[in-house]
């Protein structure tokens, strides 16, 4: 959300909804238009103390429009909580069944994201605070085949990388739901509702909950720190920019207005990371841990100077550092992806002796999976100091269809 949007409480809900209902064209590049009217309405009754009521807007009523040229939940600022669900279609589900499922999910998503109960919602009260809820749907190759439509060539498991130790329980799937909101309770209810409507058609393959910063903690747009303490996502294209559109949105074909999604579960060895002192950590990434600035100087957003050498003649941004390898400077190439990761921090395996089990749900969107994501990943697989502490244990690729207009179902442009 942009500052302008959040500071426009005079806009009534009706106004915002009407704007949302204009659909494709009116949403422009898909930047979320978000209202806080609900917060104002509820402020006097729900605020913890009378004196704080005026100063502390609530976030529960924030609505991100569901319909539009692109699906919400990609260009939308990443909210505090997300659950990623991968589903496998039951054997008997045919094309017609896939379409019935998508109509149900579309209706659920449209209602829940605007703070309305889903149809036949048994806990309608839990739908009242969408808190910037977005529901994003992705198709695996299995769904495209079942729906009797061509599977894009790129829509396939990533090639096996040497660093991978993939586990089936975090890998693959026919249908992906990204359910994200500023509030984990909202995510839980929305996920439950979507899964109840999916149950007749699918089985759950995997579920990955993740978290970022809570709302109101940092200024919008602040880069998140991952569990290594690193600023993660500094190089991302700015949402609502032409740059973003070029990096993320597919321009032609049935998936025009959509994108490709890579989701990988990256285990992070926090115990091993503890053994690395700050200098070693910064050498591994090529960036300062505190500011996220390249070691060549400047700030988080400064361009790295890969030519800069130390008094001893070594590159300041090391040849094996994550930043340099990801950037592709030494290969004479450069690709970009848009990262939208979440953290996970769960109970360690019983009797493992470990004190934590943590990592990142790496999520990236890119218009061209093969042209943008794969070269980066291949370079990092070949050489990246950070690999000492990170292990991919899950991986999946999904095709994100474009957004839908009112009356359409998600993916209609692709599956019709």
């Amino acid at each position, binding site marked *: 959300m942009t500052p302008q949007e959040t500071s426009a409480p005079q806009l009534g809900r009706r106004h915002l909804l009407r704007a949302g209902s204009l659909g494709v064209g009116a949403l422009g590049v898909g930047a979320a238009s978000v209202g806080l009217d609900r917060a104002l309405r509820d402020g006097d009754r729900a605020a913890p103390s009378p004196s704080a009521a005026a100063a502390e807007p609530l976030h529960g009523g924030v609505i991100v429009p569901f319909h539009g040229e692109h699906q919400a939940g990609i260009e939308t600022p990443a909210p505090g909580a997300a659950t990623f669900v991968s589903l496998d279609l039951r054997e008997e589900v045919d094309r017609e069944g896939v379409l019935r499922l998508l*109509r149900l999910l579309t*209706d659920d998503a449209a209602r829940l994201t605007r703070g309305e109960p889903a149809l036949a919602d048994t806990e309608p*009260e839990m739908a009242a605070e969408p808190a910037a809820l977005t529901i994003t749907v992705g198709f695996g190759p299995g769904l495209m085949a079942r729906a009797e439509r061509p599977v894009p060539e790129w829509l396939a498991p990533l090639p096996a990388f040497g660093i991978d130790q993939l586990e089936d329980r975090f890998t693959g799937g026919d249908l992906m739901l990204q359910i994200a909101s500023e509030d984990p309770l909202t995510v839980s209810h929305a996920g439950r509702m979507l899964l109840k409507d999916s149950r007749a058609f699918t089985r759950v393959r995997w579920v990955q909950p993740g978290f970022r910063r809570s709302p109101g903690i940092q200024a919008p747009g602040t880069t998140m720190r991952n569990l290594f303490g690193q600023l993660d996502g500094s190089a991302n294209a700015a949402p609502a920019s032409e740059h973003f559109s070029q990096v993320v949105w597919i321009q032609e074909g049935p998936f025009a207005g959509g994108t490709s999604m890579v989701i990988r579960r990256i285990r992070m060895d926090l115990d091993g990371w503890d053994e690395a002192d700050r200098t070693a950590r910064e050498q591994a990434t090529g960036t300062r841990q505190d500011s996220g600035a390249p070691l060549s100087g400047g700030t988080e957003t400064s361009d790295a100077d890969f030519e800069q050498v130390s008094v001893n003649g070594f590159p300041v941004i090391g040849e094996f550092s994550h930043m340099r390898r990801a950037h592709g400077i030494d290969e004479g190439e450069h690709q970009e992806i848009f990262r939208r990761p979440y953290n996970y921090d769960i109970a360690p395996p019983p009797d493992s002796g470990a004190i934590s089990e943590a990592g990142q749900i790496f999520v990236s969107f890119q218009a061209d999976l093969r042209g943008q994501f794969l070269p980066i990943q291949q370079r990092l697989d070949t050489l990246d100091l950070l690999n000492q502490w990170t292990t991919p244990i899950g991986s999946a690729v999904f095709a994100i269809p474009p957004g839908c207009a009112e009356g359409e179902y998600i993916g209609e442009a692709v599956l019709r």
Partner: protein
Amino acid sequence: MSRTTTSHAASTSTDSLSTTSSMSLLSARLPRRAAFAALLLPLAACAAGSGDADGAAGGSDGGPDGGASGGSDRGASGGADGGAASDGALTVTDPWVKASEEGMTACFGTLTNGTAQDLVLSGARTAASSLVELHETTADGSGGMSMQEKEGGFPLPAGSELVLEPGGNHLMLMDLTAALRPGDEVELILDFEDGTEHPFTATVKDFAGAQEHYEPEDSAGAVASDGGGEHDHGSDHGTAHESDHEEDQ
């Protein structure tokens, strides 16, 4: 009569769109809700394509056929631009049917009588079932709930609302003619005592509740008693004149 309609899916779907805008009983909070309702495009309503963005005005009671049905309107509603004003229509909001492979199931939703006339819902029909009954749920006097056919139908006074919901009043679809699978659309017709009818389209939903067990006493009727799983619930809801049920969330 305003709710008389000879049209089919498209117009009925649109009916349900504008539904809440015609609830004259709802109070000041209605405009917001009505705005939402305008955005509720039913699952298969692409053809209608008439999602009137200005739902709060509630002007349209039928989208594509609004003009036609307007011709037979009683004219009692007048301009509907006031948001909360009745548009003179009978509407069905958010209708759905519990999925079932065979046997019987039930249909739920909210009927709103936005007309100036008192109505009595006397029956319902659908090709999906050989017989539809109107059922009510009442306390059986021994702490449980019992389900029975509503004698004389459901009265629906002008401006009132009838909530059909699991554990409460519902349309009982006996003897299904085919499986009703999640995501299917079912066409139903409501019949009123004065001879008018109102078609609408309901979405089939996978639903764990509404597990009433019916034990028909004879081939014509069915006296039902639920499985005992919904004590102390049904009696709070589903009264015929509940006007503010959904707003109470």
